[in-house]
């Protein structure tokens, strides 16, 4: 297995996430796209670990850190979306123009 097949697949996953981030209106869908991008980053970390095989499996350790932080981010993000929805009866990011100049 060459490393580039994984890296290009991860790049495609990341680009898909970027598309969803820009196109979706619902804030929950935006968070889903962010999850896709984080998964692509995790693939990269694990591929680099499989290429170089450090003695402490550093790439996998960092992938686990990313998973943990992503879980925390989803929890906080959904709490914020919930509060915005409660206050404005909408979770669409283009309707949140209260602080727009």
């Amino acid at each position, binding site marked *: *297995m*060459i*490393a*580039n097949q*994984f*890296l*290009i*697949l*991860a*790049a*495609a*996953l*990341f*680009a*898909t*996430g970027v*598309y*969803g981030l*820009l*196109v*979706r*209106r*619902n*804030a*929950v*869908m935006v*968070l*889903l*796209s962010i*999850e*896709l991008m984080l*998964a692509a980053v*995790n*693939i990269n970390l*694990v591929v680099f*670990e*499989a*290429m*170089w*095989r450090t003695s*402490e*499996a*550093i790439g*996998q*350790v960092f992938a*686990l850190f990313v*998973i*943990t*932080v*992503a*879980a*925390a*981010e*989803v929890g*906080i993000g*959904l*709490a914020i*979306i*919930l509060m915005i*929805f409660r206050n404005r009866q909408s979770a669409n990011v283009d309707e949140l123009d209260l602080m727009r100049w």
Partner: protein
Amino acid sequence: MTFGEWIAEPVNWAFLIIGVGMLFSAIRVVTSPNVVHAALYLVAALGGVAGLFVLLSAEFVALSIVLVYIGAVIVLFLFGIMITRAPTGLDTALDNPRKVPAALLSLVVFGLLSYASVTAFESSTVSRVGEPTETATLAEAFVGRFVVPFEIVGFILLAALVGGVTIARRDLTPLEEEMRRSV
């Protein structure tokens, strides 16, 4: 390495099947007109990620993805969808109209990333395929060299827990507060 040599390896068959399935589900996540379907397609995409991790002999990370994402995060997402959208069916106004610039930008991102990785790692291979990473190695790294980041991540999780509860809790109206005080 020609394509014929590449496809002759059975592990690349597995890669191809997982990769195509994962990419299809990822594209459905960002294009599906139904929000619940999008969240469920994310399960398939992350399952593909876990499969890739097994191919890359990162079994523990694969299982963590299954536990944390498919087990917990997706459930959170489904709750979020069901709380913030009363009609969970089809919704035509789910995407904003600027799809073409977004698609162009994501293509540019893909092109740049794949160009960079192709030029940087021309034909370097994944070493020691099929040799598992021992979980003990990860455990020793976590409580050895990475013990401070490990503790910080634990603190972040605690802060996220407390913060999530604090943000999402409904504030009492003055009347309700009055009633609570009088009880």
